[in-house]
């Protein structure tokens, strides 16, 4: 197990370097000059442009710039290897921006994940054990409905009826949001995944319930509750964990639409605005962190497999 983790962590290094390089090249290959539009509908003064280009090494070629960015090429302020993500085009440190936004995004992702896991798995189990019953059909239809409605519709309706009209939840989210404030956005965000989680759980459970080991377990005299809950469900959760892990990674990348509707200052909007403003430094910095988060989440998911099914061994 220990060697497995060390091996995986070491594997992360080339992935990180490769991914950041690709992102770096792609972001700066976008057409358009970052100083265009910076001074409105009139061009910026040559001095301003020169200062700007010097500050962000825009006169160097892309390889040298990447070397400076990562810190392989020594610069006075240091680079990625020294933990410096650089400054965005407005002169603020990307690290500071992300420090402010990541806790909010992580909280929101957590609310959404808890919501989808608890309700999704519960619905999956209930429908799985009573296949073809009324509840099964109800969940099938309602998940279909949720899957087919775009998230901004769910978000806007939820905000209007539950927030503005009923006053049950705050309409928008303030700074340093509490979990209560994030409940409604989290539910909106998790709604789509609930549908997937419940269906994944149900299908796998139905299949496993027919398996020999479950029949044996019941034949041995175990209660149905234990046979389903411990033996069948545990095996059925492997694809669910894969999905949830992937989903959590995705949510940590920010949920642009939901963040906009509820005015949540998260990572998604940061990246979106960075792309719009051609703010290469902001985008590369945020995405680099994101790649890292993805790698870690994936490692955790892989380790969870072993917990759920001891036959999957990492040694």
């Amino acid at each position, binding site marked *: 197990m220990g060697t497995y983790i060390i091996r995986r962590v070491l594997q992360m290094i080339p992935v990180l370097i490769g991914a950041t390089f690709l992102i770096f090249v792609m972001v700066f290959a976008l057409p358009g000059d970052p100083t265009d539009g910076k*001074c409105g*509908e009139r061009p910026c003064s040559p001095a301003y442009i*020169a*200062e700007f280009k010097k500050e962000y090494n825009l006169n160097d070629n892309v390889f040298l710039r990447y070397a400076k960015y990562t810190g392989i090429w020594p610069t006075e302020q240091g680079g990625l290897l020294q933990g410096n993500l650089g400054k965005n085009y*407005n002169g603020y440190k990307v690290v500071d921006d992300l420090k402010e936004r990541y806790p909010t995004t992580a909280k929101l992702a957590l609310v959404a994940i808890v919501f989808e896991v608890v309700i999704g798995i519960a619905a999956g189990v209930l429908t799985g054990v009573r296949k073809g019953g009324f509840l099964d059909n109800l969940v099938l239809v309602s998940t279909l409905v949720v899957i087919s409605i775009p998230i901004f519709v769910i978000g806007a309706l939820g905000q209007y009826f539950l*927030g503005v009209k009923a006053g049950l939840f705050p*309409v*928008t989210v303030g700074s340093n949001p509490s979990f209560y404030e994030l409940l409604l956005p989290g539910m909106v965000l998790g709604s789509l995944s609930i549908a997937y989680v419940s269906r994944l759980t149900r299908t796998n459970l139905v299949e496993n319930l027919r398996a020999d080991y479950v029949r044996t377990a019941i034949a041995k005299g175990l209660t149905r509750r234990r046979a389903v809950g411990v033996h069948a469900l545990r095996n059925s959760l492997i694809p669910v964990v894969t999905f949830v892990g992937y989903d959590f990674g995705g949510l940590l990348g920010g949920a642009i639409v939901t963040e906009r509707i509820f005015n949540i200052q998260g990572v998604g909007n940061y990246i979106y605005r960075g792309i719009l403003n051609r703010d290469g430094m902001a985008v590369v910095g945020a995405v680099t962190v994101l790649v890292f988060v993805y790698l870690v989440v994936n490692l955790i998911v892989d380790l969870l497999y072993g917990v759920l099914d001891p036959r999957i061994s990492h040694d």
Partner: protein
Amino acid sequence: MRGTTRTVAVAVMSAAALLAAGCGSGDSDGGTSSEGKAGGEITIRGCNPENPLIPSNTTETCGGNIIDAFAAKLVHYNAEDAKPEMDIAESIETTDNQNFTVKLKSGYKFQDGTEVKAKNFVDAWNYAAAGKNAQASGYFMEPIEGYGDTQCTGTAEDPCTDGPAKSETMTGLAVVDDHTFTIKTTEKVSNLPVRLGYSAFSPLPDSFFKDPKAFGEKPIGAGPYQVESWTKNQSVVLKKFADYSGKFGGNLDTITFKIYQDSDAAYNDVIANQLDITDEIPTSAMIDDKYKSDLPDRNAQKETGVIQTVTFAPPAVDPAYKDPKVRQAISMAINREEIIKQIFNNTRVPATGWVSPVVDGYKADQCGEYCTFDAAKAKAQLEAAGGFSTPPITLSYNADASHKDWTEATCNSIKNALGVDCQAVGVVDFKTFRGQIRGREMKGMFRTGWQMDYPSIENFLAPIFKTGASSNDGDYSNPAFDKKLEEAAAATDSAESNKLYQEAEAMLATDFPAIPMWYGKTTMGWSDKVTNVKITAFGTIDLPSLTLK
């Protein structure tokens, strides 16, 4: 100027108008307002200032709104009609429009306790102008004598290292005593006093020059409100400045700008009484005037100093539009009223000239019949020009803001009236769009907007249509027009000056460098907690007049 859509979060801020007149000074117990009471705190929709809050380096609305609140200037624009009124200045005198003597009122204090002196203006303006400081609004100092010598002379790559500027200060500025300084301009500038209300002309305290970085985070001005705290992407808190001695003080103790990314979210918060004022009503609430039933008696609309135009590519880039008759024909083929009704829910006003009606010197109907929809006349005019040589006509826009609908409607109108195919062409985003225009690569017609920097007819003509001007995207050049502008700038009588500017504007109807489309309006809505919400000619909230109910 700034762009006309907030989504793009463009250029220069609205000028000083935030500090507007309102009623009475902050010390007077608020007794001047009939229903409101003094003190209290409210929350207003804001957007995130993009850069550190330095007046001469802020070119976008979000930061501009904050700067207008904490910085006092020589001149202040009236909240109602944008007329300039003396603020820090006791008097600004000139006999020849070239040598100005500015006398300051005594007693004005910066929020760090130091007194506002003549040198604070001179130092600030020199700092803004000096090339090595690379200030985005530095070009506002251009009229002052010696501006050219403060610019770096090196090659384009790094002009300030290769060729340092000849001088760091402008010869046109001189301190006479603590409360007097003189300005000498390179050429005659009749409206200089009006320009001085723009935020780039704010005085800066001595502490700024010691540490501009710290200043940008917690700026200091001499205005009625001071920046208490700025939490990036969350909020900016303004507190009433206790030692403010000017005439334009506020009533409220605390004003918080809460930062929103989306106008829908802010609007919903106002309906739920969780936000006090939104200065932007989302399109969804504009449809059928929904906002009027959502916020009964709690909304207002006002015309602002914004004009939307459509500019023709320079003849060297696209000769198809060279003939003014072709241009006039296209303009006459646009049914402005119908488009405004269908697309904008009447939140625009059809333009009848190139100058916004909110400024001093505006004259109606300068464009005349060419800005009136008449399909038959338009067609006749196009035939007189010999038809359109290389169809289709194209109208480009930046696709990252809501310009698709109106450009397509405009094109349809042109197509139906002239019988020539017209296509609205989206360019991916504002930066690429402006890049193509700047590089003179864009052909056909393209959208241009102008938001005034200061309320003067000159601001709608000289920066856009003068030969070689910074925003002359169509490379319009007419010696007679330039000469008229010069004469107007030299005229010592303001009525005479305005008349000359109007004559210059009239020439645009003959040459037609751009099609006037419509003037902007700003709509705001507020919660049931606040009252006395006034919209300035710059489309901003007049903070000093706000009161709680």
